[in-house]
């Protein structure tokens, strides 16, 4: 009896671990699929709406159902042309401004975050704990809360209404710094650094030749985050900039949207919608192209090996 029971039980216990290992990948959960489906629709619906409505004229927007095409003229290409040429092509100027703010602001922010994160992760110095506390504290303060004090400070410096007023605050990303810090601590083995030093490599050479390639996934993640933040930045430029020639796309589109709501103002909602579509395309492209990197960057540090 005893042997039989053991014998009968044995295969079961044998099988259990393998089944548990396989299940998450093979078994389909209807509830999960449904939930993911809902989330997918929820995230895609605004995009679909944007695409559909960018094919309508100003008049068509108000006389047709929002989530389907109208019977009127297919105005997609004329909308794009009008968006790019309206008001002497100010849209292109705004696009250029946004690119400027992203390249210098987000690029600079990433560069600084990488330098500082690496330094904090791999070097010991007096006051490191204090820096840690400040960075963690800074992550918790929303940029919006700092916008008005920053404006007053910049006004004293005479920097408001210049591109610097948008670029300089964008250079600071406590979150990016923290991310680079934890990433560098995991991704760069101290042994490699020691080996490089023993072989006579200087600190800068070590950083650029050995550390940077190791940090690549982390850098892309921080770059994407700061790019999105700068590209979508609205409140800071709203407070800092007065001259429409320096507006980023976010402010420019808002100005177009607001111009209908004033005496004698021309409603150009079709251009606002088409402009919004054009505005998100570069971001979408960046995400799709760099997806590979930033997924691995996000996951890094989450598992202790």
């Amino acid at each position: 009896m005893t042997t039989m029971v053991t014998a009968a039980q044995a295969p079961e216990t044998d099988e259990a671990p393998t089944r548990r290992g396989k299940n998450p990948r093979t078994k389909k959960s209807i509830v999960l699929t449904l939930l993911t489906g809902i989330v997918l629709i929820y995230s895609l619906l605004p995009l679909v709406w944007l695409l559909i409505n960018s094919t309508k004229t100003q008049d068509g927007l108000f006389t047709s159902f929002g989530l389907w095409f109208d019977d009127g003229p297919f105005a997609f290409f004329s909308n794009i042309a009008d968006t790019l040429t309206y008001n002497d092509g100010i849209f292109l100027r705004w696009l250029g401004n946004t690119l400027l703010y992203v390249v210098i602001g987000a690029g600079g922010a990433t560069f600084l975050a990488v330098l500082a994160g690496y330094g904090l992760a791999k070097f010991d110095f007096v006051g490191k704990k204090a820096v840690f506390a400040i960075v963690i504290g800074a992550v918790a303060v929303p940029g919006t809360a700092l916008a008005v004090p920053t404006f007053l400070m910049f006004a004293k410096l005479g920097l408001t209404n210049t591109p610097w007023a948008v670029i300089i605050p964008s250079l600071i990303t406590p979150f990016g710094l923290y991310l680079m810090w934890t990433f560098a601590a995991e991704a760069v083995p101290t042994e490699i650094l020691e080996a490089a030093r023993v072989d006579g490599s200087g600190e800068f050479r070590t950083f650029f030749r050995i550390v940077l390639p190791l940090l690549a996934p982390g850098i892309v993640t921080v770059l994407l985050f700061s790019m999105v933040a700068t590209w979508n930045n609205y409140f800071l430029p709203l407070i800092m900039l007065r001259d429409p020639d320096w507006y980023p796309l976010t402010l420019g589109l808002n100005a177009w949207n607001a111009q209908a709501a004033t005496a004698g103002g021309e409603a150009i909602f079709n251009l606002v919608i088409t402009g919004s579509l054009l505005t998100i395309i570069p971001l979408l492209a960046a995400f799709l192209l760099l997806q590979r990197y930033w997924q691995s960057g996000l996951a890094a540090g989450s598992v202790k090996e």
Partner: protein
Amino acid sequence: MSALTRRRLLGAALASAVTIGLAACGSDDDSSTGGGTAAAQSVSDADVEAALQAGGNLTVWAWEPTLTKVVAEFQKKYPKVKVNLANVGTSADQYTALQNAFQAGSGIPDVAQIEYYALPQFALQKNLKDLNAFGAASLKDQYNTGPWNSVNSGGGIYGLPMDSGPMALFYNKEVFDKYKVEVPKTWTEFLEAARTIHKADPKVYIANDTGDAGFVTSMIWQAGGKPYTVDGENVGINFADAGTQEFVKVWQTLISEKLLAPITSWSDQWFQGLANGSIASLATGAWMPANFVTSAASGSGKWRAAELPQYTAGGTASAENGGSSLAITEKAAASTLAYGFLKYANQGDGVKIRVDNGAFPATSATLNDPNWLNTEFDYFGGQKANEVFAKSAQGVVSGWTYLPVQVYSNSVFNDTVGKAYVSNTTLTDGLKAWQDQTLNYAKDQGFTVK
């Protein structure tokens, strides 16, 4: 949704900026604001002309679309002047920007577009030049009484009127004809018309309203109400006055019987409603036609303009709704040049350029110009609508004044009176809450509240 949060955010930022601005003002000599004595002219017309010829740079903050053409012509006439025209935001957005600049003490424009309702606030904070110094008092007869009174505050002249908004009733004739409704001559008839139209087709409303501070104050203005009293730093509000009660009686009935479309003005649905006939009428300022043409193009030919319905049958009372001025900031680097621009844009050649491009004038010469009066509007089926508007401009009830904290006050309108449009709160209770909240704020700002 996001627009709403942004508005609130800006409102909060503005409110805090105003607090600091006025606190500084309180320490100044109190008697100067309430004195009522006009400052003597110190800059002559010849000085202004000389400044225009000598040239220089001018920064102008304005959102009025027709100013672009005015600036172009102005620079043609005075080639040495370079005008930097910046649209820093519409209405409240621009006031936030202005308030921030005044507070920071830098980046202040020379000239700013300021609506009549906001002018007393900036004037009392001593952020604007009193144009008596340029002899602006002599221009009094050039302007219609309504807008001229609006730029006067405590004896000072703080801007030159740019446009005005004598109110009219715009109505969709097609809808009115379809339901055989006469154009209402009184607000009582308006109420009857509202019932008839909505009963005939529950999807159609006579008007939309979800609470609009500018509209409510204009309606009280027309009813002869004078809820706001301002005397220097003494401020009072009394929404229990007879005029306000007249308005409340009509509008409360419209709200209670759900005869107003729950659509916010200037929203997408609003433009849609104006275009497709589900909003059958609109009582607003005479600047509206230009917006009709560009924003509700498919309503063309269906709409007409009529005189504003009256509280008393046979009356001709009207009020201003909207309208704005150009003002010179106290710290303007080139104030004499700025005054030259103001005169060009709002009294000289600029007026015609703006009127030709659809703006509604504030100058009496234009309002009496037969050519202008005879203009036929295609949108209104060839109607000579300017005749209606000019008549309304003559009927504007005198003696109205806005509060020196009106920008803040209007920003909390939806939190107080707005409740009456969406819940069981009555208009009377909402107005009381609005009154209390505004007076508390005024008290905090250092005003003496009666």
